[in-house]
C-alpha cells in the first residue's frame, strides 16, 4: 500500500495558487495543521489568529461576507466545542463560505480528552446550512478542496495529516454525497468513514474468503446524508448493517444510517462500531483503536455478533498492518499539540 506524506500541505498550496480569494487562518497550530508551506508560499494570504477561536470564527465570517474564502486550520475539537455559538451565528446562519479544516478527529490524537473530537458529528449534524465531510485516504485529501468549491455555504472537514495511505486510485476523485463502493456483497452492508475504512479493508477480504459476502461503502459526506447508493446498499443487506467510525456511536455515521433505515422502513439489525459513549484517555492511536474496538478485530467481533457465529480470525490473519508505523507521529507534529 502506498503511503503519502503531508498530502494536504502540498495540495493546498497547489490548489490555492490561482484562487486569490482563498485565505488561510491559523489558530496557532501552523506546523500541526500542515499550513507552513502555505504561509511560506503566500505570506499575504496567511492570517495568524493566535489562540482565540471564538474571535477567529467570527473574524472568518466577516472575511467571507466580503468575498474571501477563509480556510480555518486548527484541531477539529477547537472548531466546534469552544466556539459553537460563533460557528452558528457568525458563519452558519448567514450561510457563508467558510471552510473549517479540523485535524485529528476522534481518537487519532495522542492529546487526550481535551483534544479528541469524538462528538463533533453529533453536535454539528444539527447545525443547519453546514456541510460535513470526512476524508479517509490520500486521494480523498487531494480532491476534497475541489468539492468545497461547489458548496456555497460553510463546510466542516474531518481532515487527516502526516502519513496517509492511498486506498483509492488517484484518478477516482471524491464526489460530494456519493459513497465509494469498495466491495459488493449480500450478507452484510458495512459503512465506514475516515481512518476506519483502512481498518475495515483489512478485514473484508478475509471475510469474503470465509464465505461472508460484504457490501462495503466508504462514506465521505456525513451531511447531507441522502446518497441513493447508500440507501440501496442498506436495503439489500440480508443479515444486517454495520457502521464503523472514529466517533461516538451516538450522533455520527451510525445514527445517519439508523435514520435512513428507519425512514425507508428497512427493518434490519444495525451494529454501530465506534466509541461507546465514553470519553477517552491520552494514548497512542493503535492502543485506543484496540481498547475501544474500532480496529479490524473490532469489526470482526461485530460481524460475528451479527451472524451469530465464530469466524476464527486472528490478528495474524489480517492484511496490511500499517497502523503502528504510520501512527508514530513525526517529532515536529508531536511538539505542537
Amino acid at each position, binding site marked *: 500500500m502506498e503511503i503519502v506524506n503531508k498530502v494536504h500541505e502540498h495540495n493546498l498550496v497547489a490548489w490555492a495558487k490561482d484562487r486569490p480569494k482563498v485565505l488561510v487562518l491559523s489558530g496557532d497550530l501552523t506546523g500541526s495543521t500542515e499550513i507552513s508551506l502555505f504561509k511560506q508560499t503566500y505570506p499575504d494570504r496567511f492570517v495568524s489568529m493566535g489562540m482565540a477561536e471564538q474571535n477567529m470564527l*467570527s473574524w472568518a465570517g466577516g472575511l467571507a461576507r466580503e468575498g474571501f474564502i477563509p480556510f480555518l486550520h486548527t484541531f477539529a475539537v477547537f472548531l466546534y466545542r469552544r466556539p459553537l455559538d460563533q460557528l452558528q451565528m*457568525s458563519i452558519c446562519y448567514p450561510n457563508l463560505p467558510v471552510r473549517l479544516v479540523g485535524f485529528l478527529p476522534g481518537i487519532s490524537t495522542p492529546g487526550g480528552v481535551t483534544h479528541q473530537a469524538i462528538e463533533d458529528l453529533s453536535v454539528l449534524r444539527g447545525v443547519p446550512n453546514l456541510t460535513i465531510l470526512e476524508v479517509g485516504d490520500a486521494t480523498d485529501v487531494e480532491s476534497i478542496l475541489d468539492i468545497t468549491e461547489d458548496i456555497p455555504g460553510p463546510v466542516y472537514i474531518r481532515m487527516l495529516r502526516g502519513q496517509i495511505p492511498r486506498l483509492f486510485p488517484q484518478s477516482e476523485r471524491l464526489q460530494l454525497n456519493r459513497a465509494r463502493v469498495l466491495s459488493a456483497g449480500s450478507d452484510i452492508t458495512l459503512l465506514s468513514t475516515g481512518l476506519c475504512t483502512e481498518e475495515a479493508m483489512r478485514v473484508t477480504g478475509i471475510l469474503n474468503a470465509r464465505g461472508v459476502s460484504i457490501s462495503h461503502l466508504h462514506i465521505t459526506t456525513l451531511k447531507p446524508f441522502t446518497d441513493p447508493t447508500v440507501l440501496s446498499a442498506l436495503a439489500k443487506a440480508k443479515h444486517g448493517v454495520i457502521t464503523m467510525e472514529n466517533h461516538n456511536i451516538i450522533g455520527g455515521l451510525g445514527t445517519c444510517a439508523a435514520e435512513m433505515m428507519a425512514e425507508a422502513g428497512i427493518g434490519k439489525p444495525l451494529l454501530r462500531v465506534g466509541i461507546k459513549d465514553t470519553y477517552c484517555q491520552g494514548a497512542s492511536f493503535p492502543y485506543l483503536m484496540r481498547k475501544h474496538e474500532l480496529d479490524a478485530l473490532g469489526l470482526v467481533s461485530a460481524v460475528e455478533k451479527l451472524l451469530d457465529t465464530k469466524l476464527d480470525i486472528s490478528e495474524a490473519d489480517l492484511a496490511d498492518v500499517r497502523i503502528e508505523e504510520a501512527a508514530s507521529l513525526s517529532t515536529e507534529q508531536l511538539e505542537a499539540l
Partner: protein
Amino acid sequence: MTKTHSWEQEVEAIADIIRRRVLDLTIEKQGCYLSQALSSADILATLYAKVLQLGPSEGSNIPPKFPGVPGQSGADYGFGAAYNGPQGDGYDRLLISPAHYAVAIYATLIAVGRMSPESLSQFNTDGSTLEMIGAEHSPGFELTTGSFGQALSQAGGIAMARKLRGEKGRVFVFMSDGELEEGQTWEAIQALAFHKIDNVVVCVDVNGQQVDGLTKDVMNIEPIDARIESFGGTAVKVDGHNVGEIETAINNTPHENGPLFVLAYTNTSQGIPLLDERKPHLHYVRFKNDAEEATFKQFLTDWEREAS
C-alpha cells in the same frame, strides 16, 4: 427649524425624535427596550446625521416581510444593511452589535428619512423583519448579533478584507458596555491591534446598566479606557449626550495602529426624567398601571407640542 440652527442642534432634534418615537411605541405596545433608545439616541443620531459617509438607502420605504433564512430559502445574508446604502470603496459601514437596541435603530432610520414612519407599527409583529431583537434581515442590521460580543470580531474580518482590497471607508461598530464582559470582545481587540486594523471605529454606549442592574454591581468593567488601551486600542471618553464631543472624538482622535473606541457615557433616562425612580431596573420598560401609562402619555403629548 430654520437654517440658522447649528448641525449640533439638528442632530439633537433627530435624537429627540428617536426618543419620542420609542416612547410612543412603548405606550402602544405596552412595553419596549426604551432605556436603550434614550441612552443611545445622541450617538446614533450623530453617526447617521453627521459622521457616517453613506449613500442613499437601498431598502424599501416599507420594510419587506421576513423572506426566509439564508441558505435554504435563497434569501441573502446581511440585507438589512440596504438601509445604509451601497457598500464599497469610500463608503462607511455601520455594524450593530447589541441587537436588543433594534427599536432604537429602526427609530433612527425613520428619524433620518431612511424608512417610513408607519413602518414602526410592524415592530415585533409576526412575519415582520422589524424583530424585537434584530438580526441581519432587519432594517439597519448587517449582522446577526443577538448573542453578544460577536460583531467586533466580524468587523475585524470585514475591515481586514477592505484593507486587503485597498478600499477606503471606515467600519463603525455600535456596541453596548455590557458586551465588554464577554471574553470574545477582548480577543477581538487583541486581534484588531495585532493586525493594525485602523479602519475600525467602535462607539460604545456606556449606560452602566444591564439586565440584573447597574453594571458596576453585576460585573465591573471599569476602567474601560485603560483596559482597551492595554490591549492595544485607542480609547477616548466623551459625554454621550454631547453630540459635538462625540463627533470630535470620532473624527479627530488619531489611531494609526489599531481601532478607535469612543466611550460615550450616557444616561438611561435621558429625556424622560420620569424614569429616574425606576433605576436601575430599566432593561425593559413596561408601565405598571393605567395611571402610570397616562402620565407617560401626557409627558409625550407635552414633549411633542414643545418640539413642534
